[in-house]
């Protein structure tokens, strides 16, 4: 019996062999794959003995990381729908946090948008692959791009040294 992609509704076969999927077949995780990920879960909120973020291969005594506050983002409670995140029904934990953008602290509004406005729209279109209408709407403040688009545009601005 074929399996169904939850996002597109398309049918696929599944396999647990090989490393890659093919056109009609997805390579899914085995219990062994899950357990290896589990065993090598990086625990990156701590640092290794050298002070670097703990990684998959880190073993031994950990220490505290040193974190400088970058942007401050306001969120609601974190514990919404944890069961669904774990089971994978919700693809990203981000979908269950509500963000409350504070214009005074919002990097998009305070840094990225002003820097983007100084750049030629055509150049941003070319680098981002986004449509003119989307960019014009966003730069006029008529819409707020999705998080991944904001990240993309922020990376362009940084790459061009505009901030």
């Amino acid at each position, binding site marked *: 019996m074929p399996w169904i992609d939850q996002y597109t509704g398309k049918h696929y076969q599944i396999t647990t062999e090989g490393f890659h999927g093919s056109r009609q077949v997805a390579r899914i995780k085995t*219990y062994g794959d899950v*357990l290896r990920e589990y065993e090598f879960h990086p625990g990156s*909120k701590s640092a290794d*003995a050298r002070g670097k973020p703990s990684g998959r291969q880190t*073993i031994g*005594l950990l220490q505290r990381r040193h*974190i400088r506050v970058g942007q401050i983002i306001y969120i609601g409670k974190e514990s919404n729908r944890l069961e669904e995140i774990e089971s994978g029904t919700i693809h990203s934990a981000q979908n269950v946090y509500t963000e409350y953008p*504070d214009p005074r602290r919002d990097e998009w509004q305070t840094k990225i948008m002003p820097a983007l406005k100084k750049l030629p729209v055509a150049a941003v279109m070319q680098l981002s692959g986004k449509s003119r209408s989307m960019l014009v709407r966003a730069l006029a403040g008529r819409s707020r791009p999705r998080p991944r688009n904001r990240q993309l545009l922020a990376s362009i601005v940084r790459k061009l040294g505009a901030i």
Partner: protein
Amino acid sequence: MANHEIRSLPIAVRVFPDSGNAERDIRSEKPWRIPEGTLVFDTETRFDATQKLTFGSYRFIVAGQCQEEGLFYGDDLPKADLRVLQEYAAHQPAQTVPGGVEQLRLLTRREFLKLFYDLAYEARCLVVGFNLPFDLSRLAFDFAPARGFFAGGFSLGLWSYRDPAGRERPNGFRPRVCIKYIDSKRALIGFTARNSPDQADLIPEGSVSGEPKPGYKFPGHFLDLRTIAFALTDEAYSLEGACEAFGVEHGKQRAARHGVISAEYIDYNRRDVLATSELALKLIDELVQHPIALPPTFAFSPASIGKGYLRAMGIEPILKRQPTFPKEYIGYAQSAFFGGRTSVHIRKVVCPVVYTDFLSMYSTVNSLMSLWRFVIAREIQVVEHCNQQVDSFLRGLTPDALFEPKTWRHMAGFVKVIPSGDILPIRSKYSAASNDWQVSINHVYAKQEDALWYSIPDVVASVLLTGRVPEIVDAFLIEPRGKLSGLRSTKLRGTVEVDPAHEDFFRVVVEERLRLSSRRGHSKVESKRLEKALKVLANATSYGIYAQMDRQEDDEKLDLTCHGIDVEPFACNVAHPDLPGEFCFPPLASLITGGARLMVALLEHCVSELGGTYVMEDTDSMAIVATEHGGLVRCPGGPFEMKDGHTAVTALSLQQVNNLSARFTKLSPYRNKSRSILKIERDNFDPATGRQRQVYCLAISAKRYSLFLLDEGGNPILLQKGVNNHEDRWSEHGLGHLRSPSGFESEDRDWIPQAWHSIICTALALPTQPLSFEHLPAIGRVTITRPTVKRSLARLNLGKKYGDRLKPFNFLLSCHVKQFGHPPGTDPEKISPCCALRIRFDALG
């Protein structure tokens, strides 16, 4: 000395959103009496993707006596199956009382729905089931996303009619049933309004006058036993488990085979309904033991019961009785909110440990900080800008002072600091792979404009661990003034009297729990239930209800005024805001969890002071590296060197750990001063001999650890309930969503300890065999709980009848695509770097 990399990361702080609307209070203040009639039912379904109704059975019970029993069946049941049901009904009597309907009735789905309408809606009977959302959605003929109060849930059409063209249409003269899923134990269920309601429909429940009230909607009395069992025990039960726990006489039986209709299978289903009806009585009886005005249908969680007690004691929610409490200070306190401290300190190295645990951590901290004063205060005042006072307090602190209970009473406040390497909780995205917000206790640095608010206990913990006071830019204290009038004594579960005006509720609950073993006049079962009730109550009232924020599922955006770390609030317009729960009061919530983190930090300090260390800590527990006589234990990255050149950490001796535990006795807020609040957990003792044994710990990351023994050959033996311990001691965190490799329907979880055994053997460099199930697809089971999940499956339902569709609350199997395992051409944006979730749903079977 290690070089520390200071990394700039975005951080998240909690905000307090204020919608400006009047407070919502859906709880009825009117007295509720259990309806005279009860309809109990259960359904069986096909064992395939559709899980469509095959048949079910019901009992109609009046005053505890079964008056009518019957079977009902799905619309297009095969003739052969129908014959089995007809034959069965013709030959089996109903299990009814004399005077009841003697014959076992056999109804079509429509006939049963007619009965359901008459009883559940018209006669306002109690509708009882175990996992009602699943059973109700089997009876429906259509569904749609719910709106309003039930937004985010499903609206089920149960009653229909056929139009002249023969199409099945929703009957507007009948209500719909809305179900909003909360989690696997809870859902809100209610009727909607119907067209042209009768005058009788408009009489509100509990109305004294009996007068119809225009616009009134009868919500129904839906009692899901899964939910009330959870509320009473804080445990997720199956029907079988709940029947055992509550001593049901005719408990659940197991079916030899599911999905195929036979006389045995019909017996099985009828027995389920009998077990459900008996369990309902037991659970309602248990709830009635609590002297609180909480209808069984409103007992959603232990917090419901906890809040019921607060109301019973005449305690109004703080923000309701003091709506003028300055919102900016609520925002500051909310921004200082973090959950329990949980991390790994020694990763993937097997270490000998003593596993320790704080006694009722949140209740203990509440008592130590005297927070009950605030719960019963007539007014809570804010003492603003007391920077100097707090600074002096922090500078005068010593570790010994923290072992003086009176010190803890001075910590009811918050500090705004400019951290510069201070050790404080911080919420950030530490891993690009998981991309989620995680809280950790790290060295924090910030610019002046990014100064952050922390609870005083958190700042005290930093001072304790760093030896320096951070730069303070603002501080405030909260102080209780007077006492509420109208406080009333109550009896916990009808047994333990507590006077809220003169006793610390948190302390009484824990003390009574500790005293239970010496109480006389209670049977063993009764003592066990009281112990459980007190434990649930202690947890329910000591923390969560003050932190409760409810996410609004309605897609409509709301204009909000948000209070965060700055003096001035900001306005925003967002969908799905979190609005404060009834008893929400962030200053208390943040102080309680901050106090708990301070307690763990104090233990960390004491262990470090002795030269020791720990493997992990988790909210209220810590695995301290310790052996019988102490000494060096090999550990990569450790600060010491062994004779063989390997780096090592120091293990404390058992005596040193015992001394540590004894030291914490001084902090006990309880009358029995001989008992320390830092327990050497039972896991450290052999249940057969009572002697202390050497326990080992292996931890991978926060909340992923296992405790075990080593045999003479150095092989690991996991601590297992009923075998060598009072409970299993391996983490299922991060694996709980997967089904057993031995079968999707199996509840067998043995594969998890097998996996842990293998992981531990690898860490010990012992030979390991591949696990027998390693090569099998990792399969999870998910339920269609929200319309958003359903949307992605919409095309699969096109043109199909309801019964043949993937319906709300159907169970589905899921699997996760391995990294790079997705078929080419699929949308990579929906694939996260490490854990792609592309292809997920399948039929059962």
